[in-house]
């Protein structure tokens, strides 16, 4: 039976760990950006509500979801 140490080069674990650190840093950054994006979305919704409440304002139609918007743009 072949052992992992026979088939894989030495110190594979260290190399994998180093590259995983890089990937983890990138992932954390992406998650933080996703939270920021969610906050922008909340703020934008709040702005639409504020615009609707203004005297003489025509009721603003909420924008269609992103998927539908892309379909419309493609047409």
């Amino acid at each position, binding site marked *: 039976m072949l052992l992992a140490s026979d088939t894989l*080069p030495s110190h594979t674990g260290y190399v994998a760990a180093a590259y995983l650190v890089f990937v983890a840093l990138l992932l954390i950054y992406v998650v933080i950006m996703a939270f920021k994006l969610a906050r922008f979305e909340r703020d934008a919704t709040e*702005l639409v509500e504020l615009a609707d409440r*203004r005297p003489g304002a025509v009721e603003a139609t909420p924008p269609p979801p992103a998927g539908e918007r892309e379909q419309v743009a493609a047409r």
Partner: protein
Amino acid sequence: MTLHGSRLRALSIATAVTLTAGFALAFFYAKLDADQGFVQKIFYLHVPMAIVALCGFMFGGVMAIQHLRTRDPRYDLRSYVAIHLSLILALGTLVTGAIWARAAWGHWWVWNEPTLVSFLIIFLLYATYQPLRFSIEDRERQSRYASVFAITAGAFVPLNFLAVRLAQAYTHPRVLSTSGGNLPGDMRLAFLVCLAGMALLYVTLWKYEMASKHTSMQLRALKRKLAGDDVPLAPGRSAAPSLHA
């Protein structure tokens, strides 16, 4: 600058392609190092991260000079984002370096090695940048002091690099030299592609972060326009710069 700009999308694709190509070249094209073997593959990640982080710190310093010259808060924002991203890459450099050191030398850290200690000093120096900003409530003063810090620390980076080059190396190898280094052709190609990929990653993340900050400020300004003066133009006490006083 728009969050969904076509240039930013193209830059993101170029980053992903270059970085993937670089790592593929490092693992499948570049030969194994005769001395260290497979563990030397960390080099293609660790060294580009370190170089880009140091260049990013200096870029932050250049933007800070522009800020002090013009008093334009946009330069302060650029400097802040550049230093913020460089700090993340510097942290990555320290961690990957420690892993490599453990595999190659048997120690996580070597205190008598100038390269390691000097990089740690730079990292710790820049780690005080955000607390410094946060400690100053007045926005104008905050941006001015932060710029002075960014220039001083930015000037320290090349000086530190030179001092390390002149110092005697104990264990850490000197990668870049005036003769072009000792890398064979295949290793040099993989290294240069990885370096280009890391530089592109830095620029892409910097642009994303700038777009995010601009969007946040625009949303706040719009909210103030709609809700009246009850909404402050800038958020409460924060380390992040604001384009509005």
